């Protein structure tokens, strides 16, 4: 899809005193301290980041934006696609991970390749199987557009487009993607109560899952080998590719269990399309190896009732207020098709 966009100047809105809505809800008291706070970025920087996130100008042939593989309606994952897409219908090697609560993730991407949110966008922009572009050229392309010059001036104090500013803006938007509006969060703040089945599922979760998928983020965001058989085609060594340490072989980032309703397929290579397949894996599919997480050495065997209750609890982690938040969606007020 070759999308050509014409921008409507946002600057006029600024001049008219239009105030962009605050996109950052207050962090709940039961959340830990963020690793990378979004509070350091202004609302204009976030808004610029949102424009860049949805603009295919970041890709070499201007056909693919970040949102092509990170859809707001899928909690910024890519439903029905096990592996990420690239320009010219290229297929990547990993499942596009959902994007939310990144403020609490010290390292980003499935293998932790990115050590800071501000430098993470370099990877998909440059990857030949994804956007196949380079940051220097992105800066050049953006510098030619008056709308972006104005946006950069509003966000950073001058019209100059630099790699640093592009990266900071995209990071600002991605870090603003906070998701804690689920039923679980309402329960934690005393505004709702679990059903009996959800409560039972919560107990199952605490007993079997909470060590790695620790609440309230529902992940430690550490790296672990969960016993998946190695895909014969992808031969993905996970974090070892980054650290070159054998002890990191087959370790991948532990994903959050929030928003599972929207983020299928699951795992780093999207091999499981349903949660039932995930639970089957933990029951009987685990491949033992030196780096297997010790919590999984005996697998996780649940009764049918426990399984059903757990799924009921996990459904309380879905945050429709996040998925349908217009502040995170395509900025149609700034883009219009000719």
């Amino acid at each position, binding site marked *: 899809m070759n999308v050509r966009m014409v921008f409507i100047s946002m600057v006029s809105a600024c001049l008219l005193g239009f105030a962009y809505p605050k996109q950052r809800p207050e962090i709940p008291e039961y959340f830990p301290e963020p690793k990378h706070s979004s509070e350091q970025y202004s609302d204009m920087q976030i808004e610029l980041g949102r424009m860049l996130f949805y603009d295919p100008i970041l890709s070499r042939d201007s056909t693919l934006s970040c949102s092509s593989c990170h859809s707001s309606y899928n909690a910024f994952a890519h439903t029905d696609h096990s592996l990420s897409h690239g320009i010219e219908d290229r297929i990547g090697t990993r499942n596009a991970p959902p994007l939310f609560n990144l403020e609490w993730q010290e390292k980003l991407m499935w293998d932790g390749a990115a*050590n800071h949110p501000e*430098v*993470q966008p*370099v*990877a998909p922009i440059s990857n030949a199987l994804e956007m196949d572009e380079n*940051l220097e050229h992105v*800066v050049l392309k953006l510098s030619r557009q008056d709308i972006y010059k104005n946006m950069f001036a509003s966000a950073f104090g001058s019209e100059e487009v630099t*790699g640093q500013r592009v990266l*900071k803006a995209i990071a600002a938007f991605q870090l603003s993607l906070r998701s804690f509006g689920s039923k679980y969060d309402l329960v934690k703040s005393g505004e709702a109560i679990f059903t009996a089945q959800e409560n039972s599922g919560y107990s199952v979760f605490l007993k079997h899952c909470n060590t790695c998928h620790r609440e309230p983020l529902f992940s430690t965001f550490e790296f672990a080998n969960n016993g998946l058989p190695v895909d014969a085609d992808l031969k993905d060594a996970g974090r070892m590719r980054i650290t070159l340490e054998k002890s990191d072989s087959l370790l991948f980032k532990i994903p959050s269990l929030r928003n599972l309703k929207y983020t299928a397929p699951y795992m780093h290579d999207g091999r499981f399309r349903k949660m039932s397949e995930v639970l089957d894996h933990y029951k009987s599919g685990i491949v033992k190896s030196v780096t297997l997480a010790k919590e999984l050495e005996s697998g996780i065997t649940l009764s049918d009732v426990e399984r059903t209750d757990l799924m009921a609890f996990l459904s309380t982690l879905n945050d429709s207020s996040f998925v349908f938040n217009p502040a995170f969606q395509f900025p149609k007020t700034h883009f219009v098709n000719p």
Partner: protein
Amino acid sequence: MFQGEPLIIGKYYFDPIHQDSICITSLKFYVTLKDKHEERYEDKVKLMEYDEENRHLTYHQNLTDVPSERELLIGIDSTLNTCGALSGDLDPSVGMYWTWNTGYINVKIEGRSKNCSALKHEFQFHLGGYSGKYKGIRQVNLELHDFVKCKMAIELGDFFAATDLRQKPQVMSPSDEGNRLATLFANTFHLIR
């Protein structure tokens, strides 16, 4: 320089150790002269790019009056590698940043040689790394005590005398070989009296 001769981009030089003819097509590296106690010093980092227009690279810095507290560094340390996107010469868009794995490329040495076993006889050494056992930053071990203004030369002949382009013509990620080459490159710096 290459074995005492001024380095000219694209010119072939003879390496007697490996009986090879070597030409350099690109030489870039980050250099910093700073006081040892400084932890954040991004304003002192300069990207040096050697080419026909820049055969004499210059670097100015204001430092303390305590020469023994100075250090000359090649490359970027872990602090600057983990603090997000930086500006100027450290902007990730200047082409000295790894894309598949976060981190600066401290040194780029690229060229061709007769014996090089890589495709089109082209070698590429991209040296970096900032964590674990693969830290690419190096201190240049020269007596910096008495200079207000000094001249240095880089003798790439020393680098290639210890690098067999038939065996390992490409380093594109932090590694044992990358560590070795980083040290080797730092040792090519000489003061010119």
